């Protein structure tokens, strides 16, 4: 794997990917600060994010991420239709799922890996709905959450990316995902950013509505 942030060898996502799920924990907000600015304003995919947060306080994720992102960023609402070109953050103390339709769904089921929201819950439900049109990304964190979810994304034919452990502030979560063998690509943050930059309807004119 080249360490340069060039697109060489990286796939163009526009023709294939309809949804991106991102899981992050400790050190993940900083990582997202590198990735979110790379999303093109005309992104052809919806972006769904789970960040582990402390319970019992309001989430500021949408407020933090909005100014750095060309796309509208909002906290996910139950039953909201998933729309391309939007970024949804899981609310604190709720699991975020993708349900048929595709609509967002919330649950207060038990925490998974001590986490609610859980990355596994989002990734597994999204893999069901989006199959090979899903991209799953695991970023910095100190938890095993996300490993089973990324495996489900891969099994459903989706694309899987794990942040290079050396570049992760807290590498435990990405190492766990790597050990499972679920990662198709292991990339630095600038490389993942470059990859996300290709999330637009294909320039060859074969755009999909």
């Amino acid at each position, binding site marked *: 794997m080249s360490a340069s942030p060039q697109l060489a060898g990286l796939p163009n996502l526009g023709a294939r990917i309809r949804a991106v799920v991102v899981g992050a924990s400790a050190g993940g907000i900083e990582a997202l600060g590198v990735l979110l600015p790379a999303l093109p304003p005309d992104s052809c995919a919806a972006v769904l994010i789970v960040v582990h947060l402390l319970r019992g306080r309001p989430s500021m994720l949408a407020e933090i991420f909005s100014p750095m992102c060309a796309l509208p960023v909002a*906290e996910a*609402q*139950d*039953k*909201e239709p998933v729309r391309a070109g939007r970024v949804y953050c899981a*609310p604190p*103390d*709720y699991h975020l*799922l*993708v*349900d*048929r339709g595709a609509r967002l*769904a*919330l*649950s*207060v*089921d*038990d925490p998974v890996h001590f986490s609610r929201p859980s990355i596994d*819950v989002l990734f*597994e*439900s999204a893999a*069901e709905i989006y199959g090979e049109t899903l991209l799953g990304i695991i970023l910095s964190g100190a938890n095993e959450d996300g490993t*089973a979810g990324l495996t*489900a994304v891969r*099994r*459903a034919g989706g694309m899987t990316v794990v942040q290079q452990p050396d570049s992760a502030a807290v590498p435990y979560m990405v190492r766990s995902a790597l050990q499972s063998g679920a990662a198709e690509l292991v990339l630095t943050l600038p490389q993942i950013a470059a990859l996300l930059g290709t999330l637009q309807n294909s320039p060859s004119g074969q755009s999909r509505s």
Partner: protein
Amino acid sequence: MPTLVPETFDIELQLLIDAIFYKYRFDFRAYAFASLKRRLSIAMTRLGCQSLSQVQDLVLREPEVFSTLLDYLTVQVSEMFRDPGYYRGLRECVMPLLRTYPSLRVWVAGCSTGEEVYSLAILLHEQGLLDRTLIYATDINAQALQRAEAGVYDITRIAGFSDNYRRAGGTGSLSDYYVAAYDGAVFDKALRRQVVFADHSLATDSVFAEVQLISCRNVLIYFNRELQDRALGLFREALSLRGFLGLGSKESLRFSAHAEAFEEIVPHERVFQKRHSA
């Protein structure tokens, strides 16, 4: 998660849900699919089954397996005074209006193991309203209702409950309301003197009383939109003129057919009031 061909699992899920309806009259057919699927996957593993067809076989022949499965499908472990801001909102914005009624009826819909029922009873008590209030605490799970009625909670959970109670603006100490016995906290019987625990399904039953306040928290997120609309229709019908509805902190009426019937009166805490015309 066990490895499964998704399509097969989905077919088996549908068949199991139908079987449960025909055999036991519990209706999960309009539950939100993603959560239902997740819960059934977990139940299948815990029951030691390889497929939902095996689960179905057991459920149809052994009622006690069904009762175990029902817990996986319905029981949410909540907390007393979960989301303290909600109870503070009720205390500050709803109680002053409820105080003007000579008698009150409150409906806790989907009360599960009762944490919310005791929280509301304590709130009403501290407002001097409990003696003239009747609380209907309903759920579809009879075992959960029994636990709710017993009012005994694991002592390890009490610290969290107390913290929530303080942040909700409680005027005393939570320990005023329970006695510790062994590893349990037994809540004061006086709190449930005014509570009727009853079996009621938002999916299949109808309205049973006129009420001034309905609290239904984190129940509707498990329903699909049609069933959400049915439940909200029941609430709309049951609420008296300008009655109050409290939902979970991330539940919304935005995507409901009844959105216009309610206005949000406590911002961010999902406390709604039925409109005059509704």
